[in-house]
């Protein structure tokens, strides 16, 4: 998976595969991060008594 493994060989297949995997992970990660940040922001900025808005 990583180039520091002893039998590592640079290979186009690796780049494609890991690229795609990394892409998916980044999107998921970005999505989650966005949600968390947005939530922190929302929680911090909302006014006290309001409940259950959709």
């Amino acid at each position, binding site marked *: 998976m990583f180039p520091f493994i002893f039998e590592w060989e640079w290979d186009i297949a690796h780049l494609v*595969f890991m690229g795609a995997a990394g892409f998916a992970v980044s999107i998921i990660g970005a999505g*989650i991060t*966005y*949600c968390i940040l*947005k939530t922190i922001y929302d929680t911090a900025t909302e006014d006290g008594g309001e409940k259950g808005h959709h």
Partner: protein
Amino acid sequence: MTTPAIPEGVKRCSTGKFALGLAVAGAVLLWGVYAMFLVWYKGLNQTGMDNAYGFALWIWADLAIIAFGGGAFFSGFLTYIIGRKELKSIINYAVIIGVICYSSALLILGLDVGQPLRGWFIFWHANVHSMLTEVAFCLSLYLGVLVIEFIPVVLENPKLDRFRFIHHFSHNMHEVMAVFAATGVFLSFFHQGSLGGVAGVLYGRPFSFREGLLIWPWTFFLFTWSAAAVGPCVTVLITWLTEKIAGKKLVKQEIFRMLGKISGWMLLTYMIAKIADTWYWAAVTAPSKGFALMDFYTNNPIYGIWILIAELVVCGLVPALILISRKGRENNFLLAGAMILAVIGIGINRWVMILQVMAAPLLPFQDWYMYMPTWQEIATTILPIAYGTILIMLAYRYLPIFPQEKELNPGS
């Protein structure tokens, strides 16, 4: 008691009845868990597998369960990407079924390896040429996606929803769900396909080997397509079963028919491709390796040509034709029957692509290899059903899964 645990406006059965149900499913679950620990502790000698059956019941279960869980990605695809908003009434449930299927699949994979503690080597020392690596990556990531899709549903439980942070979080996740769903579809396309590739790339195994496109054998595409076709069927069938047990309507009948129609067309196109693939394999691929079609279906106790006919016609073309016809879909019996047949058909397909591959002899002086699973294998294969039942019971009781439930059951 400040907030009820049960979602607002719906009725659920008594705690006693619920506990009884949980106990029954729990007993089956415990049996499976016992078998699971036996396998982990004593090793794979607890199974009926042998040197000819490196892959057996569990891999079949994995392949089947992931095909059946395909409802989640395909519904997600239809809902969020194609924009069939009406499917929102069933998408939650599809996601839950998906979570159950995919987590079970990973669990079984964890059982199926000889050295479970080294399981992470598949990521660490990944061989990107291996279909199994692709499966492992996509499967784990997609399970992550499914959990992400599932989280907002869980967070909508009234007890949790009280918390502001959770409330906002669940809301925000709903907002970006399309992104996750799209990623899920992307991942699903690859892992459903890679599961097909698992058997398709085995060029030493003429029974499963298929030519293909670039690095992907035709089975890659066939598996993705068939999972998309049968996934919604499983979602509908389980919803239906839930309705029967709950004793009330949860989703509008049109949704079932609509999914049936989509499945029908998917299945029909899949069957056309599958038949073409089978024909090419029987006429060109296999003979080039010295095998005639009937070599694969004779001289053994179970695998006769019936299994091919069952897969392609009885559980393939027949349900497809029923589902694409309006009359067929409008008859509940036919609709359910066709969906069950379709599910069986895909089950058979996954079975032959794993177990018959192992069974068929290659050297002319060898006999067919036969296999009988042990109770440990069966128990651990049933385990996901018990676990799924419990999860569904909990989810149905405590989470607002079916947005149409209140509307469909005004009396309660």
